[in-house]
């Protein structure tokens, strides 16, 4: 899966308009990135990538790129 495909998947999961996010986008600046969005991210990692994402790891994410790296 390419980085762009991952970004699309993240936009879809967080219910953000397609084409809004770039790898440099800071998560703190995304209005939709609340506790439910983070919960959605946990489900995405588990179901689509078979990866266990913990709360601690989520708190360490600063940019979209950090999420992409985790999904690699």
């Amino acid at each position, binding site marked *: 899966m390419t980085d762009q495909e991952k970004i699309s998947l993240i936009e879809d999961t967080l*219910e953000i308009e397609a084409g809004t996010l770039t790898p440099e986008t800071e998560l703190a600046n995304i209005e939709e990135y609340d*506790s*439910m*969005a*983070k*919960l*959605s991210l*946990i*489900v995405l990692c588990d179901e689509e990538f078979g990866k266990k*994402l*913990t*709360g*601690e790891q*989520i*708190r360490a994410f600063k940019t979209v790129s950090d999420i992409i790296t985790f999904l690699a």
Partner: protein
Amino acid sequence: MNFENKVIVICGASKGIGFNLAQTIDALGGTMVLHASSDEGIQKLKGTFEPNKHVFFQANFAEPTQLEQAWQEQIGSAQKVDGFVNCVGLRSRRPINLLKSELVLEVLSANFVSHLEMIRILTKKNFYNTGLSIVGISSIAAHSGGAGVTAYAASKAAMEAATRCLAKELHKKEIRLNTIVCGQIHTEAYDAFMETKTDSDQVLERQFMGLGKPQEVTDIILFLLGNQSRFITGASIPADGGYLV
């Protein structure tokens, strides 16, 4: 409290509150039917409790339609039951956009439909002794909304509502049913839940007496199983360290 000559069915006995309860009733001399869903759970129970004294029951609570046959094959009506405690709790946390109906049905089946099914099986004539006491482990989620816990909360609220109906219905058979409304209790499930917490808000802020211990819930279960609680039925008893106050 004496449990000699008493037969207690504990579902979800391999972990958390159920396991603590099983250890306690074993020490008090009771005989148990110990249930777990997984092979791992059953192995743990067989390794912990004397197989000559206790009986083991393996069944997947997410498939309620299989329960009766599993019970008949593994247990039957050989032992009349004095108490049934259901500690099974399939947890689920996800936002509504990801809450597919398959998952909702799985949670409702495991936590609610199977609870009813076990009660249906155990309250048949000749399956229980006079004074049968049934205890369901519920949750504060059934009373206080939590974002993401929709399916779990609904399943526990359903358990409590059914308990009130059945308390009236089964009173004539001298059967009592109650639920325990648990707050945050320190179990494996709690640790797993804390791992997925994404914000640093204090889970225990509302639960001003702090994190509960399994033994604190076990003590209330023992009370509800015993004769000292004979005037209580259809109730939702809090074990929440003040959460719902």
